[in-house]
């Protein structure tokens, strides 16, 4: 199973490295997002308190939405997703492969976004790197896990571009709450480890539950 997932991941990375289309557009969009927030919220050179956490996560989710749509749109041309489903590989392996690809992309975007947001909004995001990384990683996994399933299942649906955010955002509300509040805790002058730990635990639980659910339902949802 992991062999197949790895094959798919490697294929996606090769394709992406060749064209760099999704990487560039997603990163550029994420940066534009942050800039829009900056213009909207920074007044007289002073950024809003605690705004950085929210802006970071919103940018990640918007960029993630775009990346998910583009990745599966690519599989839709030439119907290659169908070809993957025709292979004797287990369907959950296909899901895991695509998920890992999306995660790689989003982590890359976050590597760029965190310093950018910290800089533009004068937020001490890099003060507690271990906590920040944990929260970002678990939150991104939660978002991407649900997103990959929904994007895959919408590939043959009508109105798929607008349906993805319509379905995805309400379901990932716990991720955004936990991610933003968790990150905001890290921005306080005194780090309250208890609160941070709570949000991290919630994210980890969310990840476990929803990755499992996605693995269970992927097969049922992709076959007619």
């Amino acid at each position: 199973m992991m062999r197949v997932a790895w094959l798919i991941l490697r294929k996606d990375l090769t394709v992406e490295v060749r064209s760099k289309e999704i990487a560039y557009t997603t990163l550029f969009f994420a940066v534009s997002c942050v800039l829009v927030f900056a213009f909207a919220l920074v007044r007289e050179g002073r950024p809003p308190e605690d705004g950085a956490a929210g802006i970071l996560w919103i940018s990640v989710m918007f960029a993630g939405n775009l990346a998910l749509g583009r990745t599966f749109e690519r599989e839709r041309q030439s119907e290659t997703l169908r070809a993957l489903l025709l292979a004797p590989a287990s369907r959950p392996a296909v899901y895991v492969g695509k998920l890992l690809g999306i995660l790689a992309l989003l982590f890359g975007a976050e590597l760029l976004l965190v310093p950018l947001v910290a800089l533009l909004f004068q937020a001490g995001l890099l003060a507690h790197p271990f906590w920040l990384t944990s929260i970002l990683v678990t939150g991104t996994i939660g978002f991407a896990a649900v997103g990959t399933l929904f994007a895959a299942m919408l590939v043959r649906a009508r109105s798929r571009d607008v349906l993805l955010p319509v379905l995805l955002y309400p379901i990932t509300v716990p991720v955004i709450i936990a991610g933003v509040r968790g990150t905001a805790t890290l921005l306080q002058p005194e780090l309250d480890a208890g609160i941070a730990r709570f949000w991290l635990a919630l994210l980890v639980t969310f990840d476990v539950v929803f990755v499992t659910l996605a693995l269970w339902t992927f097969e049922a949802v992709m076959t007619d």
Partner: protein
Amino acid sequence: MPKWFSPAAILCGAMFALSPFVIASAAYESTMGLVQKIFYYHMPSAWVFLIGAVVCGIASVRYLATGDPRHDRTALAAGELVVVFGLLTLVTGPLWARKAWGTFWIWDARTTSSLVSWMIACAYLILRRYGGPGSEKLAAALALFGMANVPFIYISVNYWRTIHPATTVVPRLPFTMGFPLWFCVVTFVLLFIILLKLRVRVEEQRARLDALYLALDERS
């Protein structure tokens, strides 16, 4: 229609007709006065909203597991009712809140979780309507995810804010407030069952019609 349907419908209608009188006979709540009485419609709506969501979730899981269209029909009907009763809850709540707490909307655990769950239900209907053919299975997956999400939504929003009156309000109510409440709860649940049955029946007729069209096609 099954035998119990007509008597149940008549009973439900009668109970609704009776409910304003039952509610009027309840004691006045000391601080909120007359407006508090909206609670007798608001709470049952909220409970039916929850029950409907559970029915939709379970029917969706069964549909995903077995592919039997009957479960899909139940899920669709329940999903629509969730949106309706959710809307009722989300409208009666703020009307009450305005008088009780001074503002229409408060970002606390219960209200926010309800809003998010309601939006998931709306997303469910949007998917079914605009997703094109084959969206039944996709919607079922969404319903499953929505149902699994309820504890997460609640816990995360709860830890985020909390003002809503505690759940223990209900057992501590004096009988004059307790009886009208249970009366309305039974009325609403009965209404839910009746509407569910009606809606499922419409879908069944539609499926029968499709089958007849197909059979006609075969014959010619």
